[in-house]
């Protein structure tokens, strides 16, 4: 404990050189170093099999790291059983105890801690009030809807004031509208209670909506840890650029390299100027990343100074209510998306030749995919 006090501003959770393998052959988590600050909402985002859930399970104590150490409030917890870690957890399928009432479910963590009866009653009531379910206290989980069950699971994980709350794709089983509503509720709870939340999801929009910071996992490695906006605006590699938000990819070769920008010859013809983010130098292959909303469609011939300009062929348009998408064929990429104002798609016809322009700052030269 004393050693911990000497350290400056300790993180609540510290993963230090964590490795995990199940079969002894390939690593599910490769060398993870991650600090989670107190009061933070951090999301582990990644496709399935990327190691994010394994990381969460190691933190919860259901999996033991093959190598490395996890610190919780500066105490090593690698060999501490889950029930001693004081970590609340919300599971994907709620895991409400089916033989107990809602009230008994929420009271469970207090009763195993031998909390006094009066105290338990008060805290359970407060927790149920928080999720607006006081009237359903005597029901059983089977009699509730999915959203209600998830709220109860949330209340149960928070009622004993754990130092950390883990959520393993808690909204995965809910429909879209309910999911969005629950996202806001969880976010509000986090802000009003000041709890630390580690959230696992494969849904990038959910991660962007809720998180203070997002750790993008792929292949057992954290690709990037950053704030949502930074992750979107400044992805460090092609995986992050493609996984977070919509993205257009153009492949090419670096021609010239000058300070922060580079000239890239596209494989499908034409050259563009791009921000050099993750390239090894002139002559290297690269994948360019351009967000659909940073591109403008212009009539033939029009030119703006310094902007990249490429010919394109209209494939189709998609109307989405609040906006529209144009699907173009640009330099060999037949699924190049451009975001339009609603209504603007009417003027485009299939097979029409147009030009697209985008600023060099909005085009990132990343590692080839």
């Amino acid at each position, binding site marked *: 404990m004393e050693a911990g006090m000497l350290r400056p501003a300790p993180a609540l959770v510290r993963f230090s050189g964590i490795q995990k393998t199940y079969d002894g052959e390939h690593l599910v988590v490769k060398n993870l170093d991650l600090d989670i600050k107190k009061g933070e909402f951090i999301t582990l985002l990644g496709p399935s099999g990327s190691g994010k859930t394994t990381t969460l399970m190691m933190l*919860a104590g259901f999996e033991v790291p093959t190598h490395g150490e996890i610190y919780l409030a500066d105490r090593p917890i690698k060999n501490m059983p889950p*029930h001693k870690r004081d970590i609340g957890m919300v599971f994907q399928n709620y*895991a409400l105890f*089916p033989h107990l009432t809602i009230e008994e479910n929420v009271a469970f963590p207090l009763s195993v801690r031998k909390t006094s009866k009066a105290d338990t009653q008060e805290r359970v009531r407060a927790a149920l009030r928080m999720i607006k379910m006081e009237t359903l206290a005597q029901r*059983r989980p089977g009699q509730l809807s999915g959203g209600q069950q998830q709220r109860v699971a949330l209340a149960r994980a928070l009622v*004993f004031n754990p130092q950390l709350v883990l959520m393993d794709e808690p909204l995965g089983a809910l429909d879209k509208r309910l999911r969005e509503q629950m996202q806001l509720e969880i976010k509000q709870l986090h802000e009003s209670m000041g709890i630390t939340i580690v959230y696992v999801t494969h849904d990038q929009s959910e991660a962007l909506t809720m998180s203070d910071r997002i750790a993008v996992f792929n292949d057992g490695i954290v690709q990037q840890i950053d704030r949502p906006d930074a992750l979107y605006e400044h992805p460090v590699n092609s995986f992050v650029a493609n996984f977070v938000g919509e993205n257009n990819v153009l492949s090419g070769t670096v021609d010239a390299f000058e300070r922060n920008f580079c000239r890239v010859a596209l494989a499908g013809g034409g050259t563009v100027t791009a921000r050099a983010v993750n390239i090894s130098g002139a002559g290297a292959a690269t994948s360019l990343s351009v967000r659909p909303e940073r591109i403008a469609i212009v009539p033939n011939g029009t030119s703006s100074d310094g902007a990249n300009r490429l010919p394109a062929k209209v494939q189709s348009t998609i109307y989405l209510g609040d906006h529209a998408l144009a699907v173009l064929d640009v330099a060999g990429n037949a699924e190049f998306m451009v975001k339009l104002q609603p209504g603007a798609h009417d003027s485009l016809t299939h097979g029409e030749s147009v030009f697209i322009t985008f600023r060099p700052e909005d085009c990132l030269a990343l590692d080839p995919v």
Partner: protein
Amino acid sequence: MTAASLTGADAETKVPLKRRLKQAERARQIKALALVLPLLLFLLFTFAGPIAGMLWRAVDDQEVRQVLPQTIVALANWDGKDLPDEKAYAALANDIQAARAAGTIAIAAKRLNYALNGFRTILTSTARNLKIQPEPGTAKEALGKINPAWRNRTTWTTIRDAGGPVTSFYLLAALDLVRNADGAIVAASPDQAIYREIFARTFLISLGVTALCLILGFPVAYLLAALPPGRSNLLMIFVLLPFWTSLLVRTCAWIVLLQSNGVVNESLHWLGIIDAPLRLIYNRFGVCVAMTHVLLPFMILPLYSSMKAISPAYMRAAASLGAPPLTAFLRIYLPQTLPGIGAGSLLVFILALGYYITPALVGGAADQMISYFIALYTTETANWGLASALGALLLLATVLLALVYGKLVQGQQVTGGMKN
């Protein structure tokens, strides 16, 4: 009518619709009935019929009525307080002579002997010595002279009580009760009163075997439910292996293992743990071991299916909420296996109640269960009435148990269901 006008259809088109629905339903119902009909008929003839027959035999009482019809008629108005009048004696003398000619004396003698030990001798000696029909008015004296038992009131109440057509005699006997000469129900004499003890023994052994099966089967079922599919399938084959060999073979295997110079005793002796062979078979121990072995799969399978339905997330959730493993098991896991425990226990208990071969082969005289006596009365002494009465009581106990279990399970479902 408003509804009809709303939908634009009049009353006439509504009726055919209803009829068409009924017709469509009827076709489906007939199909369903046709599918179950073979089994239904099979069960009716091989299951429901025999059981009804058995239940009827438990109260049926026709033998004496058929052999001594006049006597039964003559005794119909007898008050039973004193000896019957001359008419009854004359009727009896008539009946005995007719029965002797027909060769049916033994049938009545056997039935009456159940009720009163020694009645067979009374009846056969009377039949032998009653050469001619006594003069009118002298039958009482004549019969009394042949066998003084005819001057005894009990002899006559026995005949009257066995007069049928239905009787509570067998059912009372199965509960160690008899009707005395005055018609009151009293405890049977100690040398006849054996069934209550046998019933108690049957229930005790069944209970013990059920408990053993639960204790041994629960961890196995847990392992089965927890293992990955490949290995749990292999283990499941081992659990089901006993079903592949005959009950007789398995029971005899236990004799080989447990007898005085059997494998177990020899091994223990060789290891120097015992000097003299332990008595492991032909006693209660052997019965419980062999029955537990045979009935174990019936416990494991329902337990397994109830455990398989419990998501491992529940135990993880309990742990994350701060419950140590034992607390999590007792408060979260165990309650969810209760339906399986109930079903398995009931199944094993009911099967154990009716066990016959295993106790007969590996049990001692004091370990025979009720089924042994049912078989004994059916095949050896041909006392079908008593066998049926014992069977009926066993059936009643089983049905009551099943009802209680059904009630318990239903209660659980009403309060919220075990699964979400």
